[in-house]
């Protein structure tokens, strides 16, 4: 009898012990990224072709004070004061930021996109409120960081960082100020030493450009952004990597360059992309006039289409006429046999979805509350760039190429969507239920496919040994929309193709920018 009583006690105790011994702490994939220690510092990057700047010296950076001056020595002592009594938290922020400035700011941007990628809740009368940049904290908060908004945000931040770093490299070579640990050999150095001139600080350039650009894009998150900026610069001081004047010059340069991108952003027509009821109705009327069935919102109550005029936004890689020329031919007519066949194909996929197809759909869904498909491609790129050990300026250049391709893919895709105004599979056959949320804009062409085609193309150029893998990822992302009930095959296949065409423009730029 005793023995029997002991059994449940043992079972209880051992299961509890098993669980208690499990560590629930979850580690992010880039939490333990080693400190950036580039194989090649890209000393000549000051001669690379900027995106908006007329030249690397467009914004002046004053000559630094001499490393023998009392003021400089005071700045060295500031580092020593920090280093005298390092807390665990201070060591942690050094470790975090030393992984790479472009990497971390890209992650922060992806975080803000995820936070803000939420469609507004409807008003009591069934209409929908629009976020206001002038009142970003009132509901609905500004911005609604949907895929086009996000693609544009990633592109501007990356492009501004790249141009600012090209300028920074120019001044680094011009002034050639040694790093603090070279001036004072007694300094502790908590990061890998670099042969690069430390003035202006490339980290502060990246942070300053990001913070200034994000002030426009995420005006309600200023406190958070500024706290990150301060932490980033503090990490560089604590690490012994920069003195304060390196950081101040870098931040000022980054912000000045970003201002040029802010000016461009204010005039790039994105502000008018939400359009208005008259234009939405016109799109519907045009589709009817062509003898087609116009798209309508499948949300209840019906939501205005997402950014119908995003297709008119000024692209980075080509002019507006080229953007229109990249628009593909029409989708199969809604009344055609091909469309019936394609609708049937979607239905057959979602009738009894396999677990593997559901996995693929969810892996690539990047829907509400996520960093969107462009953010997913940034995440893929970031992990591969970490492995490549790029310099900060090459990181920024590659991120800029990728994100300009993604934004421009978004522009061509949105132009196509609203030009043809084609219905979703579920509109043609309500029995088609979807394995993820159905986006609130026309079907043709698939945004996921266009983004992915563009991203895989430019990434395959940047890391040629992975070109086949990127292509396979893009195909999987594309087909995820078909098997998830979101898109017809034509949307996906043509989308991939259009994306590749956009990606090729990024390759043209890459070949000519002086970095290869």
């Amino acid at each position: 009898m005793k023995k029997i009583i002991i059994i449940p006690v043992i079972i209880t105790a051992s299961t509890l012990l098993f669980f208690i011994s499990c560590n629930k702490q979850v580690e992010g994939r880039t939490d333990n990224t080693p400190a950036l220690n580039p194989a090649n510092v890209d000393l000549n990057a000051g001669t690379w072709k900027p995106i908006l700047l007329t030249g690397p010296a467009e914004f002046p950076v004053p000559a630094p004070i001499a490393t023998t001056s009392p003021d400089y020595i005071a700045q060295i002592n500031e580092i020593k004061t920090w280093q005298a009594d390092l807390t665990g938290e201070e060591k942690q922020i050094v470790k975090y930021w030393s992984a790479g400035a472009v990497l971390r700011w890209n992650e922060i941007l992806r975080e803000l996109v995820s936070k803000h990628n939420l469609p507004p809740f409807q008003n009591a009368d069934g209409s929908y409120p629009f976020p206001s940049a002038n009142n970003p904290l009132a509901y609905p908060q500004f911005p609604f960081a949907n895929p086009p908004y996000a693609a544009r945000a990633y592109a501007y931040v990356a492009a501004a960082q790249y141009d600012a770093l090209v300028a920074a490299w120019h001044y680094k070579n011009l002034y050639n100020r040694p790093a603090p640990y070279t001036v004072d050999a007694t300094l502790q150095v908590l990061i890998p030493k670099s042969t690069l001139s430390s003035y202006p600080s490339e980290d502060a350039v990246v942070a300053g450009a990001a913070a200034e650009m994000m002030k426009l894009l995420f005006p309600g998150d200023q406190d958070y952004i500024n706290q990150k900026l301060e932490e980033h610069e503090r990490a560089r001081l604590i690490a012994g990597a920069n003195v304060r004047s390196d950081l101040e010059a870098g931040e000022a340069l980054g912000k000045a360059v970003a201002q040029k991108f802010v000016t461009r952003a204010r005039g790039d027509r994105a502000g008018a992309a939400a359009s208005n009821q008259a234009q939405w109705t016109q799109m519907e009327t045009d589709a009817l006039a062509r003898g087609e069935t116009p798209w309508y919102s499948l949300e209840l109550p019906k939501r205005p289409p997402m950014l119908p005029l995003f297709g008119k936004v000024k692209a980075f890689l080509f002019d507006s006429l080229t953007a229109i020329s990249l628009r593909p031919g029409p989708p199969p007519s809604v009344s055609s046999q091909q469309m019936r066949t394609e609708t049937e194909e979607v239905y057959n996929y979602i009738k009894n979805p396999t677990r593997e197809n559901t996995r693929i759909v969810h892996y690539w869904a990047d829907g509400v509350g996520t960093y969107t498909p462009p953010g997913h491609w940034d995440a893929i790129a970031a992990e591969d760039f970490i492995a490549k050990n790029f310099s900060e300026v090459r990181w920024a250049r590659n991120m800029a190429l990728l994100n300009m391709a993604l934004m421009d893919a978004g522009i061509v895709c949105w132009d196509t969507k609203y030009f043809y105004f084609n219905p979703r599979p579920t509109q043609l056959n309500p029995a088609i239920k979807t394995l993820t949320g159905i986006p609130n804009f026309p079907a043709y062409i698939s945004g996921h496919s266009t983004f992915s085609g563009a991203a895989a193309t430019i990434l395959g150029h940047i890391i040629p040994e992975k070109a086949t893998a990127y292509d396979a990822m893009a195909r999987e992302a594309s087909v995820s929309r078909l098997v998830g009930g979101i898109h017809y095959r034509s949307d996906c296949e043509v989308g991939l193709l259009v994306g590749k065409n956009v990606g090729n423009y990024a390759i043209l730029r890459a070949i000519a920018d002086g970095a290869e």
Partner: protein
Amino acid sequence: MKKIFLPVFIFSAFAGSAQTDIDAIMMEKNAFCTGPLYSYSSWTNYWEGTLKRDNQNLGKVSTQMFGLMGNYGLTRKVNLLFSAPYVKTKASAGTLHSMNGMQDLNLFVKWRPYQKRVGAGRLSLFGIAGISFPLSNYVADFLPLSIGLRSKTASARIMADYQQGNLFVTGSATYVLRDNIKIDRTSYYTTEMHYTNEVEMPDASSFNFRAGFRNHRLIAEAVVNNWTTLGGFDITRNNMPFPSNRMNATTVGINIKYVIPAIPQLSIVTGGNSTVAGRNMGQSTTVYGSFFYVLGLGSKTKLTGKPAKK
């Protein structure tokens, strides 16, 4: 397209009064009681954080469960229990696909170390330990249409029961350890960004109180159950729910069990409950029905649901 979870994971809260892990009924040594269970649960309103709302893109979200349960008397003081549900979900509006599949296997050891006459009645004390784990590779990250949360759990429960004549009260408290889960995407946002597919699942606690009439033929009881997630975050405005949300629910319900006089091995069980308070969950109403058959109920064994006569 906004969704919300419903408490399919509180399996025992449905299962009412038929030799479950959360009642005071024990099987005699070597007796085995088993039977199928069907439950239907639905909601149209849910709590987005603490804000109650409906969602025209979901309409009514319903969950059907087909379960098999069993209880084996290792001794009259130690019982082993299991339940294995198949779950099917559906939204009446919007475009989101329904989900179905085998959910989690639940295993319990129920131990009654103490039973004595106290005053005019009889006091019994119980210790119950359980584990649960997914029976299939179902999707957790598709709330509210996911069929479960996938988390492996271990639970510990203490329970006290007092019966005087045909009236009884039972109270229990449970702590549920929940293991982290993996989802199909590579990152997610809670109140901050997580660049991983692993989700930290907060533990949970549960309180259950039931009282009513109980003899060898009939049990009729009222039940109050509270489930509280010890951590997690609220769904933000118009966002999707997520497995590690702070899901809380308080339900009130009734259960009836009746032993068929002509076939004393067979009992029918029915009941229902309604959610009266919640957070990040649907305001669900649940009804269920089941029948149980007792095998190995010899002359020396009997159900101990009625008071001992001494």
